């Protein structure tokens, strides 16, 4: 859909129908940046078995594109990439305010290499060769670590999105949302007052192999906007044509 160089697992992503089925919360999405296909294939299989959605790229530039367009729960980055040093890539990601935890993979074994890796912005460091149980444990630890991943309730004005109960509320009253509308609202609430690129919405709502019709995002936004308005939400979805959408809190709302 977006980047043909990104291989995604499981193929097809989430089910395509919107609204008729009971929806489930999207699985944490992980990006593997590794040019050794044997290693990346092994990691992909392990992570998919554990229930994660996994994307895989081989180049640093592809990784930057993917990570700026997608809200990943974890980035796994090899240091020895063909087009750019992995340390530079990690620094660039942090400069671009990509906040997902980063697990570095490398065959560099010296202590100073590890220190350099961590000081560049990575959260943890795994030296190849590694044992799969250790890899699993480090992934689990990194996904547990950030507070924002533990907090599954997001607020914007009188809107609350609860990922645990899969409920969206306005003024304490539940909203009748289909799955993709729920995912869209969650994204906009998490990024309240910030412009959310249309591409990021596509990446959140659809798998890489899903076909997305040209107006599907507009249709989801239109329906969600009407639902929020009917429910008396103190926030509005603003459109910036050709750029994306922003959830704007009304003047009386205290938070920003």
């Amino acid at each position, binding site marked *: 859909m977006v980047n043909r160089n990104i291989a995604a697992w499981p193929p097809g992503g989430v089910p395509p129908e919107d609204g008729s089925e009971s929806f489930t919360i999207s699985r944490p999405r992980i990006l593997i940046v590794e040019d*050794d296909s*044997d*290693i990346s*294939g*092994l990691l992909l*299989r392990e992570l998919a078995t554990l229930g994660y959605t996994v994307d895989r790229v081989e180049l640093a530039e592809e990784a930057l594109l993917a990570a700026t367009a997608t809200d990943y729960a974890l980035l796994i980055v090899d240091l*020895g990439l063909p087009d750019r040093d992995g340390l530079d890539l990690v620094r660039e990601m942090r400069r671009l305010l990509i906040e997902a935890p980063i697990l570095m*993979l*490398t*065959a560099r*074994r010296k202590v100073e290499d590890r220190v350099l890796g961590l000081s560049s912005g990575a959260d943890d460091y795994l030296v*190849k*060769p*590694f*044992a*799969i149980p250790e890899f699993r444990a480090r992934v689990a630890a990194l996904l547990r670590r950030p507070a924002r991943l533990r907090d599954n309730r997001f607020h914007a004005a009188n809107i609350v999105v609860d990922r645990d109960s899969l409920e969206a509320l306005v003024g304490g009253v539940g909203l009748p949302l289909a799955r993709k509308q729920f995912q869209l609202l969650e994204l906009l609430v998490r990024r309240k007052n910030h412009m959310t690129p249309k591409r990021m919405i596509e990446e959140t709502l659809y798998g890489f192999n899903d076909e997305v019709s040209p107006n599907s995002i507009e249709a989801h936004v239109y329906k969600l906007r009407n639902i929020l308005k009917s429910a008396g939400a103190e926030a509005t979805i603003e459109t910036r044509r050709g750029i994306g959408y922003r959830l704007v809190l009304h003047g009386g709302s205290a938070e920003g």
Partner: protein
Amino acid sequence: MNGRKPGPDKAALALLDPDGSFIERLRQDHATLLTLLEALGDGAGEKEAHLAELRRFAHRLAGAAGTFGHDDIGEAAMVVEDCLTDGAKPLPIHSIDTALGEAGRLYALLDRALKQG
């Protein structure tokens, strides 16, 4: 003997490499290493470039082989890489000789792994 495993445990490998693609990679690495050793043995062409290529090859193999249970190959590849990562430039002759000797040992280990399937 140094007590290292001669190859991966079969049951573990079935989990790590269910479609057997890693053994195919070792087959390609076996051929690549032979080509590099022949090029270095001939003394023809860019010796520095061949040594740099051998170092990159050993670096990649060191990371992957151990992860897939080929500890002996991974460790031999690390030794080759370390010999070629000497801080001095150009590399001292004795480092190059040691690296080539270790690369020969690495080739023998790859050969054995392929014969064992």
